[in-house]
């Protein structure tokens, strides 16, 4: 199990397009992937779940990966967030 807290960097938050990029990326890995925001935990490989988080700009979310490539998954997802999903 690998956990990491990060902050949403892009101004528009996790809207449809970033969500789909995130889900597409997560689906390339074998590990289970969940995202927690406040008291809501969702499956990070499901688009509806990610969109339902409605994670806004500067909100804090926790990435939770569990499996053989968990650290690699988190690293890649973090990179995607740091790049602000190619926005701003």
């Amino acid at each position, binding site marked *: 199990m690998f956990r990491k807290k990060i902050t949403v960097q892009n101004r528009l*938050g996790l*809207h*449809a397009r970033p969500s789909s990029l995130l889900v597409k990326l997560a689906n390339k890995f074998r590990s289970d992937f969940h995202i927690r925001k406040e008291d809501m935990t969702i499956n990070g490989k499901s*688009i509806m779940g990610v969109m339902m988080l409605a*994670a*806004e700009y*500067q*909100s804090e979310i926790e990435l939770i990966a569990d499996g053989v490539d968990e650290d690699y998954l988190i690293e890649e997802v973090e990179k995607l967030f740091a790049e602000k999903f190619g926005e701003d």
Partner: protein
Amino acid sequence: MKELSIKHFFDLCRQRFVLSIVTDPGSMDKKIIEPHIHRPGLALSGFFDRFPYQRIQLLGETEINYLQTLQDDILYDRLNEMMSMNIPCFMVSKGLSVPSQMEFIANEKNVPIIVSRLATEKLYWQLSRFMRDYFAPEQSLHGTLVEVFGVGILLAGRSGIGKSECALELVERKHRLITDDIVKLKLQEDKLYGMATKDIGHFMEIRGVGIIDVERMFGIEAIRKECKIDIQVELMPWRENMDYERIGLTNQHTELLGINIPTIYLPISPGKNVSVIIEVIAMNHILKTYGYDGAEAMQRKLAEEMQQKTRMRTISGNLQEN
């Protein structure tokens, strides 16, 4: 290039345009190779530069009256020059009779003169429309065409993927089959229409069963002869690393006869009910044409929520600083 023989044209349009032929039937072997219609006013007055001789030459009351005012020798010269140019045919409107000299030259030069009882304007428009439809660009492709809730859906994908089986399920759900296996596409008034290549009925091959007759089996309400194509659905086997559409905010297209048709790439896997998904695709298309896009609506609601939360965050941040 497509062509239409006068004989075939005459047979097809005899009733619609109330046609009769003035010249010898032997002249009917000529061929029309262009869909346009020309009114040869200038040529009749002796101006032959850039005269579009390969078009149907339509004579109305004005042209016929003009011919009648001409002196015999001039009339002969003009018509002789015109008919030496391999004109496909003359069409005369309003059931008017042509000067006897014209009939004589036409028979000599083997140019058919066809008389219609329709008024000139009406004949012109209806004839243009008929010609445009007849000469419309065509293409055939491998696929199955069904109409679901009034939306024309072209099912594509490789052989054996289950297009026919999907169509059969849709027919059973009271939708309609246009054609299976080969679809003839035709461009009409900037819209794409699909139909069967041959009008032999609605037969379909189901693997393991053989050929079935859909019309006999499901009744007349299960079939249609042609319909407008609105969406293409490409059935494809499920693959692990393929990017399938998850949200539906981006639209993909396939170009068919120069028209962009929205295309959906639909992964198939065992246990998936494709016909229900096809119904959903059709309904979603209707909603979109009526101006409602589900993906967009959800996106908007999420954006509102996030904006509000961002605002709250800035306010509380400012309060803490003070």
